[in-house]
C-alpha cells in the first residue's frame, strides 16, 4: 500500500513539474505575476511529493518488503539497518529517485530563499529546474521504476553488493549527487539569464552560493569515494582514473573554474559570457557523468546499470538540455558585454589563467576518458587509457595552478605589480624552498616527486596564511574581523596544498612488504616490527570472517594491535578484504591478510603509507573553506534584504 502511494506521488511529482516548467515561463514572458508566482508553491509541492515517494521506498527497504523487485535484488533481512537504508540508493533505480529528490530539493530551496530575486528571473530559474525534473522523472517512470512489484515474493532478498556495505560508501553517493545536482542550479540560472539577455553583478551574487554549495558537496563526495577505495580495496590506492571517477572529477574541475570566474563577474562585471558557458558546461559534465555511469558505454567498476535503453534516454536528455542551452548561448552571448577594464597584471588576469588551467585540465581528463571509444570507432584500434597517461598529461596543469595560485590570490583587482604583491609571500616562498631542499637532501636519490610536492604544498599553505596576515594588516586582532570570505578562501587554498603534500609524499615514500608469515613470526618493515600473532574464524551478522591479530611495535614499544580480515558474504557469494589501518598524522600502517599457504603460514602484506590522511584532510579543509565562505556577510546581507522584500511581496500579492 505504502509503495503504491510512493509510486503515485512519483507520478504526481512529474505532473507538477510539467506545470512548473511551462506556466511560470509563459508568465515571465507575458509579465503575468500570478503565473510567475505559481512556481513557488509548485516547487514546494514537487519536493514534498518526491520526499514522500523516497520515504515510501526507504520504508520498503527497512521493513524488507520482498514483494518489491528492487528490495529483493538489493536487500536481505540479516543486513544491518544502516545498509538497509543505504541500499535504497545502492542501486540504479533508487539512486535515480534520490537524484530527482535532490533536484527538487534545490528547486524548492531556490523558491523559499529566493524571495529577493527579481520575480521574472526567479520564475525562469524554477521553470528550467522543473524542465530538468520532468526529463529525469520521465526517465525513472518509463525506464527504471523502483516501485515494480513481484507476483510471487521470495522469502528473502539477494543482498546488497558487499563492497557497498561500508560506512564510507553508504554516504558517498548522496554527497556526490548533492554536488552533481547542485550544479543544475547554476545551469538554471545561466539559462534564465540567457533568456533575459542580462548578466550583472547581482546575478553572479545569486548564483555563487549555489555553486559553492554544490562544489562543497562534490568535494566531500569525491573524497569519501577515494577514502573508501583506499581502505577497502586492499592495496591502499586512492585514485584510479577510472571512467566513473573521472565522471565526478570533470564537473568538479569545471565547478572550481566557475566559482572563480563568477567572482570576476560579481566584483568586476567581466568574463560574463565565459561564466555562463562554464555554468552550462559544469552541468553538462554532470549529465555526462550520469550517462557514463548508467549506460555502460565505458565499462567500469561502478557502473551498476548497463542498459542501452537507459543510456539512450540519458543521451537524449543530455542532447536536448545542453544542445538547447548552447544554442541559446550562441544567440545571446554577444549581449553580455563586459564592463570592467583591467591591466594585464591583475587579479582578473590571474583568475583568467586559473580558468584556463582548470578548463584545460578538465579537457585532458575528458579526452583521455573518451579516447578508447573514439579510437575504437574512428580508427579501429582497441586500446586502453589508464592511470599512467592521466598522471603524465594532467599533473603539469595542477603544478602550474599551484605555482600561480598564492600570487594570483593576493594581487589587487584592476592593476597589480608582481614585486609588490610578492612581498607578503616571501616568507612562504623561502620556507617552501628550504623544506623542499631539506626533503631532497634527506631522501637521497628517491623520487623527485617528494621535493616538488613539498615546495608546492608549503607554498600554497604558507601563501594562504601569508595572505591572511597581509589582509589583516599584520595585526592579530584584525584577523578575527576579516570577512569570512577571506577566511574561506585561505582555508580552501591551504586545503589544496595539504592534499598536494599528501598525494606527492604518499606516492613517493610508500613502503610495501609482501611475504609469507608463520604464526608468531616477527618481521621488520621500514623500522616497524610486525608480528602475526593469531588467525581465527569469526562470524559477523551476514558474513564469515578470517580475522588475524597482528602486533606492530617500534623499538620495543607497542604501536598498535590490528585485525585485518578477509570476509565472505555467503548470500552474494562474494569475498572482500578488510584492511586494518592504524591511522596517524605522519603515516598509516596498513595491514592485509591473504591466503593460507601450502607450506604453512599466511600471505601478509604490510604497507607504511606516509602522509596518507593528508589527502582527504585537504579535501575536508577545502570543503570547510567553502562552508565558511558561504556564511559570509554579503550573502547574509542579501538574505536580510530578502526578508524585507518578502514582506513587501506578500503585500503586493494580497493587493492583486
Amino acid at each position, binding site marked *: 500500500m505504502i509503495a503504491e502511494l510512493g509510486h503515485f506521488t512519483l507520478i504526481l511529482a512529474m505532473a507538477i513539474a510539467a506545470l512548473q516548467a511551462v506556466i511560470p515561463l509563459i508568465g515571465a514572458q507575458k509579465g503575468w505575476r500570478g503565473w510567475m508566482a505559481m512556481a513557488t508553491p509548485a516547487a514546494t509541492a514537487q519536493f514534498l511529493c518526491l520526499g514522500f515517494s523516497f520515504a515510501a521506498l526507504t520504508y520498503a527497504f527497512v521493513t524488507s518488503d520482498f514483494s518489491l523487485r528492487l528490495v529483493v535484488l538489493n536487500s536481505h533481512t540479516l543486513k544491518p539497518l544502516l545498509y538497509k537504508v543505504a541500499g535504497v540508493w545502492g542501486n540504479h533505480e533508487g539512486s535515480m529517485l534520490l537524484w530527482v529528490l535532490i533536484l527538487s530539493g534545490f528547486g524548492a530551496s531556490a523558491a523559499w530563499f529566493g524571495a529577493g530575486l527579481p520575480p521574472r528571473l526567479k520564475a525562469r530559474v524554477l521553470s528550467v529546474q522543473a524542465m530538468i525534473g520532468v526529463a529525469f522523472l520521465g526517465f525513472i517512470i518509463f525506464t527504471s521504476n523502483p516501485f515494480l512489484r513481484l507476483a510471487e515474493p521470495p522469502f528473502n532478498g539477494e543482498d546488497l*553488493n558487499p*563492497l557497498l556495505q561500508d560506512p564510507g560508501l553508504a554516504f558517498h553517493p548522496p554527497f556526490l549527487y548533492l554536488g552533481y545536482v547542485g550544479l543544475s542550479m547554476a545551469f538554471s540560472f545561466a539559462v534564465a539569464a540567457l533568456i533575459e539577455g542580462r548578466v550583472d553583478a547581482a546575478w553572479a551574487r545569486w548564483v555563487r552560493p549555489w555553486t559553492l554549495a554544490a562544489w562543497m558537496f562534490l568535494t566531500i563526495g569525491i573524497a569519501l569515494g577515494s577514502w573508501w*577505495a583506499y581502505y*577497502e*580495496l*586492499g*592495496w591502499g590506492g586512492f585514485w*584510479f*582514473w*577510472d*571512467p566513473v571517477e573521472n565522471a565526478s572529477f570533470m564537473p568538479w574541475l569545471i565547478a572550481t573554474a566557475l566559482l572563480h570566474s563568477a567572482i570576476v563577474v560579481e566584483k568586476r562585471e*567581466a568574463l560574463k559570457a565565459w561564466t555562463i558557458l562554464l555554468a552550462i558546461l559544469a552541468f553538462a559534465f554532470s549529465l555526462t557523468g550520469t550517462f557514463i555511469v548508467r549506460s555502460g558505454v565505458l*565499462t*567500469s*567498476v561502478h557502473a551498476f546499470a548497463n542498459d542501452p535503453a537507459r543510456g539512450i534516454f540519458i543521451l537524449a536528455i543530455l542532447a536536448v538540455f545542453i544542445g538547447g542551452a548552447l544554442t541559446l548561448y550562441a544567440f545571446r552571448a554577444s549581449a553580455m558585454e563586459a564592463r*570592467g*577594464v*583591467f*591591466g*594585464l597584471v591583475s587579479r*582578473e*588576469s590571474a583568475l*583568467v589563467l586559473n*580558468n*584556463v588551467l582548470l578548463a*584545460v585540465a578538465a*579537457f*585532458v581528463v575528458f*579526452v*583521455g576518458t573518451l*579516447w578508447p571509444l573514439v*579510437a575504437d570507432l*574512428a*580508427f579501429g*584500434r*582497441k*586500446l*586502453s*587509457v*589508464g*592511470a*599512467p*597517461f592521466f598522471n*603524465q598529461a*594532467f599533473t603539469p*596543469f595542477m603544478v602550474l595552478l599551484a605555482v600561480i595560485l598564492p600570487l594570483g590570490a593576493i594581487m589587487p583587482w584592476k592593476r597589480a605589480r608582481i614585486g609588490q604583491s610578492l612581498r607578503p609571500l616571501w616568507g612562504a616562498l623561502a620556507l617552501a624552498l628550504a623544506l623542499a631542499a631539506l626533503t631532497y637532501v634527506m631522501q637521497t636519490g628517491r623520487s623527485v616527486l617528494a621535493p616538488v610536492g613539498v615546495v608546492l604544498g608549503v607554498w600554497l599553505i604558507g601563501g594562504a596564511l601569508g595572505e591572511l596576515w597581509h589582509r589583516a594588516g599584520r595585526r592579530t586582532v584584525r584577523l578575527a574581523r576579516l570577512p569570512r570570505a577571506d577566511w574561506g578562501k585561505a582555508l580552501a587554498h591551504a586545503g589544496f596544498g595539504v592534499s598536494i603534500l599528501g598525494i606527492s609524499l604518499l606516492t613517493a615514500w610508500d613502503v610495501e612488504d*609482501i*611475504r*609469507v608469515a608463520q604464526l608468531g613470526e616477527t618481521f621488520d618493515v621500514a623500522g616497524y616490527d610486525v608480528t602475526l600473532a593469531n588467525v581465527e574464524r569469526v562470524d559477523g551478522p551476514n558474513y564469515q570472517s*578470517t580475522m588475524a591479530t597482528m602486533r606492530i611495535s617500534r623499538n620495543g614499544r607497542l604501536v598498535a594491535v590490528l585485525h585485518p580480515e*578477509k570476509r*565472505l558474504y555467503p548470500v552474494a*557469494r*562474494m*569475498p572482500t*578484504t578488510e584492511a586494518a589501518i592504524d591511522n596517524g598524522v605522519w603515516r598509516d600502517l596498513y595491514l592485509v591478510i*591473504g*591466503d593460507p*599457504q601450502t607450506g604453512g603460514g599466511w*600471505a601478509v602484506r604490510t604497507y607504511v603509507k606516509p602522509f596518507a590522511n593528508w589527502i582527504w584532510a585537504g579535501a575536508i579543509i577545502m570543503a570547510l573553506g567553502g562552508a565558511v565562505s558561504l556564511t559570509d556577510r554579503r550573502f547574509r546581507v542579501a538574505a536580510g534584504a530578502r526578508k524585507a522584500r518578502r514582506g513587501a511581496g506578500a503585500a503586493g500579492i494580497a493587493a492583486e
Partner: protein
Amino acid sequence: MRVMVLLVLLLLPLAAPSLAVQPDEMLADPVLEARARELSQGLRCLVCRNENIDESNADLARDLRLLVRERLVAGDSDAEAIAYLVDRYGEYVLLRPTASGSNLILWIAGPVMFLLALAGAGMYLRRRRATADEPPRALSEAETARLREILGK
C-alpha cells in the same frame, strides 16, 4: 573494487580472494622484482575493468605477472618484455597508450588546447587593457550641466 574481478572469481566455486601479487610469484632477485612490479603497473588486466595486473586479483593477471617475470629472468629488457606482451595481447594491454599514429591526437590534445586557450585569454586580456588605456572621455554638455546642478553651483 573491481566488480568484474570478483565476478571472475565467482566463476570458481566460492574462491577465497587471493591478493594481487602473491609471495610465491615474487622473484628472488630484488632488482628484477622491482622492474617486474614497475612494468606490471603499466599493463592492463585484460578481463578486468581499468585495473593493472599488479593490483588485480584475477587469474589472468596472475598469469601475466608470471609471464612478465619469466621474460625478465630470460634476460629481456623492459621494452622487449612489453613488446612480447603487446605481440600476444594487442595494444589493449598497455595502460599508457603509445604516442604513435592516431594516438598522437590524444597526447597533443592537452598541450594544444592549452596553447589555444592561452592565446584566447591573451587576446581577451589585451582587449580589456586596450579599453583601460583609452583616456576617459570628457563630459558632454548635458552631463556638465547636471553635475553643476548636483554640486549646487
